């Protein structure tokens, strides 16, 4: 008899689920979404890390690189002999122009490498074509980004512009390089290959074109024992003491490496936080569903207890609903995540140009994900299940229990509203229904606000990126074209550009890398010298004096790092000199947080370069850009020419690729918002069917009933929206502040921003969900079997 009862109880479980299949499915979907997010993104993070670590290892990524003015190739032998040095590779690199079409040129990094063998450090993997032939002269190998941007293939022709001369080269191959998985065209700007390319040429070819025979200016080193790297760097520095070393950068400090690491870590942090929030919502929804189910089945619970079922059997019966939801949701979530993680990994490695796609299944992640999903469901179910303990058969089997169970009261808000408005009895129903089940109302508000928070926070991250770029190119970089020279040029010579056709204004500038020192701290930075009244380079001074000669203006980031105050003397370390200068002011800078500004005169004085500059900002007439650019590349010693609109567009395109996953998170947030809203509204309708039947029987039109439900929903949604928006802003701020700390230091200073249009769209989406659910509710109310329901007294 007992065994039959257990089987019957199991039958009841499945039949109950079937009668509430829509709700059950929605809850399963919520759990699937949560587990899918966590499992797939965790595995994708591991896969990406493995892929790029493998790439760095296979391609013998340099442990450190020395950048110097010039040194003879013979110095490499001395460095090889240092104990901890594993391999050394010397290169010559310059910035130059690339002619991508007859009327378009872009800038590029030209790197001369050994053509008789593949590099022993910072190797490249050939994706198309082949490596150089021994003795190759007019040949090149393109880094994959520029090849992809312009559709170059092995065998095509390629034109470099060096010192105004065009050089035609044969593309021997297309390659991926661990150094340039993420390519930076400036210290802060990621390039997709559209405005900046990396080109490898035979070393001796480049040396001969530049008249720098046997000269190198980059030395790439790998070490045997990474723990001794500092010592090794010191030893290398002493070998190179006679040569002007500009900087030594460790592999882990290269911008591309850091950006990649940041992207993957950030990706993982977002995924973790999102998963927890989604599962919290799932737990709350299960709580609501089970509580409702248990209340509606209290007669049955009473009967089971009266029959002699033990408490733990009844508790376990109801817990089984949640366990089943967890089982189904977690299993499907975990299974889909296997494929999803592979797709994610493949997508990201392709976008980044990582030449190796290492994917694998991580059983520990799958098991953890499954357990997290299951546990969340059980946690949501515990309290309602324990409430069955409070139910005594004699009480719960009273027929009109529904009216006894719902303790009516006049809420405070109604009393306040009554002072200002005459509320109809019907409108009081809407207000009071909010308070008839406080836990459900609160958990609905919380569920919707958490979903909104997910959506708004993702918009916050994406909008902040986009807005920062837009503001940067509007308020700071106000030029149309910017040209940089590889040597110092007389200011007058540069100003002659003003005479060209189509030029409105020319402002010379100086830019150079340096270090600044205060106390015991030294920071690498960029020094920019601009005219005092520059109109083409925006400078926002937030504290201190007006922009003037004699002092330095630094960014807030530098002030924070060095603990500076206005009026203090800091030391600029450049070209083997130490120059003391007073801090006149603090400025805001979006692109590259470690920037210092000087007037041109002060910069020239400090650098000891007389009346010379190495760049110019240009304002041009519309439609003249390409001619001006062409002419600029024909000038001698032009290192690079940047067109603002192209740079801005490229930034935005790159950001769009990196914001795919925030969009995926956004979609998940929308799904959760839908499921929470739908679930709650459906429960509200179902549990009040008998009340609706009574009202319909009294002659109250359906429209009025559904309007009351709509008002009730709106009264819940308004605080949910306010809370969700607030939380969304806070969370997006948190994301921007915490896990982009690294980013802020190195690349871009993000200003928190959420586009009002995105907020509006989110609210419209929510309202659309409510309207759809209400349409469904209206249909449900229409289908009410009045004659049956008015005979029932169940809640």
């Amino acid at each position, binding site marked *: 008899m007992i065994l039959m009862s257990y089987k019957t109880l199991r039958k009841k479980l499945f039949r109950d689920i079937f009668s509430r299949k829509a709700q059950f499915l929605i809850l399963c979907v919520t759990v699937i979404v949560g587990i899918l997010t966590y499992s797939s993104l965790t595995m994708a993070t591991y896969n990406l890390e493995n892929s790029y670590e493998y790439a760095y290892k296979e391609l013998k990524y340099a442990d450190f690189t020395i950048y110097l003015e010039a040194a003879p190739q013979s110095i490499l032998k001395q460095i090889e002999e240092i104990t901890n040095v594993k391999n050394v590779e010397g290169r010559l690199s310059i910035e130059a122009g690339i002619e991508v079409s007859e009327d378009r040129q872009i800038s590029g990094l030209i790197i001369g490498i050994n053509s008789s063998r593949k590099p022993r450090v910072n190797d490249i993997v050939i994706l198309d074509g082949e490596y150089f032939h021994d003795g190759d002269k007019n040949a090149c190998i393109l880094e994959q980004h520029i090849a992809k941007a312009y559709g170059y293939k092995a065998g095509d022709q390629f034109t470099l512009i060096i010192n105004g001369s065009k050089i035609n080269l044969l593309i021997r191959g297309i390659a991926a390089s661990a150094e340039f998985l993420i390519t930076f065209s400036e210290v802060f700007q990621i390039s997709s290959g559209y405005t900046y390319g990396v080109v490898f040429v035979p070393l001796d070819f480049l040396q001969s074109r530049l008249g720098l025979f046997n000269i190198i200016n980059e030395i790439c080193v790998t070490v045997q024992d990474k723990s001794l790297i500092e010592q090794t760097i010191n030893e290398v520095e002493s070998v190179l003491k006679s040569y002007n070393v500009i900087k030594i950068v460790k592999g882990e400090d290269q911008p591309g490496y850091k950006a990649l690491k940041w992207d993957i870590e950030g990706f993982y942090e977002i995924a973790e936080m999102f998963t927890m929030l989604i599962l919290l919502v799932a737990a709350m929804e299960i709580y609501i569903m089970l509580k409702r189910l248990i209340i509606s089945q209290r007669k049955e619970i009473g009967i089971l207890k009266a029959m002699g079922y033990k408490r733990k059997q009844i508790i376990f019966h109801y817990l089984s609903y949640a366990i089943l939801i967890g089982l189904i949701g977690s299993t499907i979530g975990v299974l889909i995540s296997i494929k999803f993680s592979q797709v994610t990994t493949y997508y990201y490695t392709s976008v980044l140009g990582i030449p190796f796609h290492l994917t694998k299944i991580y059983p520990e992640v799958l098991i953890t994900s499954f357990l997290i999903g299951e546990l969340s469901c059980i946690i949501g179910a515990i309290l309602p299940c324990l409430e069955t303990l409070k139910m005594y058969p004699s009480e719960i089997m009273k027929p009109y229990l529904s009216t*006894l169970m719902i303790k009516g009261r006049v809420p405070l808000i109604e009393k306040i509203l009554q002072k200002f408005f005459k509320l109809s*009895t019907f409108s009081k*129903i809407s207000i*009071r229904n909010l308070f008839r089940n406080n836990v459900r109302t609160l958990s609905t508000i919380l569920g919707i606000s958490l979903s909104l928070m997910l959506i708004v926070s993702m918009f916050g991250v994406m909008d902040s990126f986009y807005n920062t770029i837009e503001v940067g190119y509007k308020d700071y970089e106000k030029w149309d074209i910017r040209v940089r020279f590889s040597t110092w040029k007389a200011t007058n010579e540069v100003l002659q550009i003003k005479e060209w056709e189509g030029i409105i204004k020319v402002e010379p500038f100086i830019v150079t890398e340096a270090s600044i020192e205060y106390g015991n701290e030294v920071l690498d930075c960029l020094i920019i010298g601009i005219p005092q009244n520059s109109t083409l380079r925006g400078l926002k001074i937030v504290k201190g004096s007006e922009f003037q000669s004699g002092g330095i203006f630094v960014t807030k980031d530098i002030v924070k790092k060095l603990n500076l105050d206005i009026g203090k003397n800091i030391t600029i370390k450049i070209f083997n000199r130490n120059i003391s200068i007073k801090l006149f002011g603090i400025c805001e800078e979006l692109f590259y947080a470690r920037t210092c500004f000087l007037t041109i005169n002060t910069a020239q004085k400090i650098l000891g370069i007389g009346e010379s500059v190495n760049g110019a900002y240009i304002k041009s007439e519309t439609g003249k850009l390409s001619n001006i650019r062409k002419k600029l590349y024909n000038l001698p010693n032009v290192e690079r020419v940047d067109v603002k609109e192209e740079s801005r567009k490229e930034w935005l395109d790159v950001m769009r690729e990196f914001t795919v996953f925030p969009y995926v998170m956004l979609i998940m947030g929308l799904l959760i918002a839908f499921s929470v809203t739908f679930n709650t509204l459906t429960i509200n309708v179902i549990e009040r069917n008998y009340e609706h039947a009574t009202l319909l029987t009294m*002659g109250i039109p359906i429209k009025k009933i559904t309007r009351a439900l709509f008002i009730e929903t709106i009264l819940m949604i308004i605080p949910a929206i306010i809370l969700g928006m607030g939380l969304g802003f806070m969370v997006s701020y948190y994301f921007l502040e915490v896990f982009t700390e690294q980013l802020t230091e190195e690349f871009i200073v993000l200003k928190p921003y959420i586009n009002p249009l995105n907020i509006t769209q989110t609210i419209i989406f929510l309202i659309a969900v409510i309207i759809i659910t209400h349409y469904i509710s209206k249909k449900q109310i229409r289908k009410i079997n009045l*004659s049956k329901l008015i005979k029932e007294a169940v809640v």
Partner: protein
Amino acid sequence: MPNKNIVKLMNVSKTYKVGKTEVKALRNINLEIDEGEFVVILGPSGSGKTTLLNLIGGIDRPTSGDVIVNGVKLNNLSDEQLTEFRRKNIGFVFQFFNLIPTLTAKENVMLAAELSKRDGEDLEKIVDSLLSFVGLKDFANRFPSELSGGQQQRIAIARAIAKDPALLLCDEPTGELDVEAGKRVLSLLKSLNEEKGKTIILVTHNTVIADIATLVIRLKDGEISEVKRVDNPIGVDELSW
């Protein structure tokens, strides 16, 4: 002058489908009820008495035949039209009271009174007088959870008549009440019938209650087995069950 017909059923049948089985709840019912009658419909469980009440009240539709209430043929009305019909013509009293739990006693009555579109001032007075009529003026601000079953049912009666309907339909109104409370409810219904001229149709399985009716209809297996006119119905106080 003879009272006019308020309810007329002509060859009315109702069949339900329960799974694959067809259940004939009512078979070929012909019935006329005059205005001002106190009708009790009797029958055992499953005899079709609630179905009959539901058809008269416009909350169910006949499978065949015509249902005419207060001159309106209900068969062809749409759902919206039926709702409007009920609003104007019918008051319901349910076995399980069916009060809205989040509204006070007064507000439950007001909910129905507002449907009759009388102006605000009159409504308050009307509702107060109704509460007095049912003897629960002092309980106006109590919620259903704070009232006994009998008190809830009396509030339900006040609600049912708040719209001043032509017809009051009561489905086992004393089913959940003890004798004392049940008698109080029946007294109210009797007053409504005798003092205010309301037509009342009451469904019950309790044969004793039939003694207070002016017209008793017995149903058996979905058919009318007996229609008995009672010229001198007894008072509620004389009832005993």
